[in-house]
């Protein structure tokens, strides 16, 4: 399964295969380890903890599936960059980007139109 998983509200889910994939993931039983002795369980936990701490980079190809497996603890080892923000801040940033896009678009169009027209006007002025 190589398709990206999108939430159902996004139009990409009109792709039936993606819907099936989501259903498959949702209905999949959680993976269970075979019964282990207390000693082996301890070793297993230590191993997972060491892996989570020491792994410099982990490539997670199928995030939704791994969240249901014993590997899930490793996922939290991925360093995520960025500043935590509230939904209100997120909205403000989005609106600022919208305003900047509008302004830059208009400025660019105006500058281009004026530049292209200037050669025309020069020619008109000189011919008069």
């Amino acid at each position, binding site marked *: 399964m190589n398709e*990206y*998983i*999108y*939430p159902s509200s996004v*139009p*990409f889910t*009109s792709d039936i295969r993606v819907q099936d994939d989501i259903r498959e993931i949702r209905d999949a039983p959680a993976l269970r380890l075979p019964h282990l002795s207390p000693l082996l369980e301890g070793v297993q936990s230590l191993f997972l903890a060491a892996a989570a701490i020491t792994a410099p*980079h982990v*490539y*997670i*190809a199928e*995030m939704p599936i791994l969240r249901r497996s014993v590997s899930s603890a490793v996922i939290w080892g*991925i*360093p*995520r*960059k*960025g*500043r*935590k*923000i*509230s*939904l209100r*801040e*997120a*909205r403000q*940033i*989005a*609106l600022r*980007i*919208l305003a*900047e*896009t*509008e302004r830059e*678009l*208009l*400025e660019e*169009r*105006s*500058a*281009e*139109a*004026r530049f*292209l*027209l200037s*050669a*025309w006007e020069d020619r008109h002025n000189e011919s008069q």
Partner: protein
Amino acid sequence: MIYEPVKIDDPIRQGDIFRNVPRVDLSLADLVVVDDDDSRQTTWRDLVLEGSATQGVAAVLPVKAVMAIVITQDCDAVRGKYLSLCQMDEYLTSIGQKDPPKSSKKWQSLIVEQARTNPRLIYFPAAPERGINERMAVDFRVILRLPRTDLEALRESRIGRLNPIATEHFRETLAHFFRRYAFNEWYPLTNEEFEEYAKERREMIEPYPWQLV
């Protein structure tokens, strides 16, 4: 004028004009992504470096309803999964002019001059009976991509289509804009002409070897 009505169940064609088409804006340097429990402000570069970008992320992005015209050609518009549209804006705003020309003579001069010099924009007249209240310009550099089936579901937002003559001019202008390729327009100038040309340019331009002799 140059528009014609379109039935609600007519297939979407090149030159169909829609209102309320969503335009999503994006800044790679300033991106809000939503993780499992919270949102964070980051950059696309960091998302690529941390490996999230290739898996896809959920982001908070601004969306604005704009008027737009279909540029996908008719065959692709019938069966393609996605359609492309170009944004339309008020004409005077698009060319950065605040005051409208005061006479028909000046209007025609402005429209023709812009059409000859500015391949990025194509002019469309107002048609209040179709909901196009102002003179408009299509900007070929602002391209919107939408799923065809979603746009078909928005057919009530289709306010008309170009008539055959306007369609011919539209597709030729569209093709011309994307068929162009960059060249340095000063390449055939003499040394003296090049020097005069360079004086008028803000950016640094280099002469060709034959302009140094």
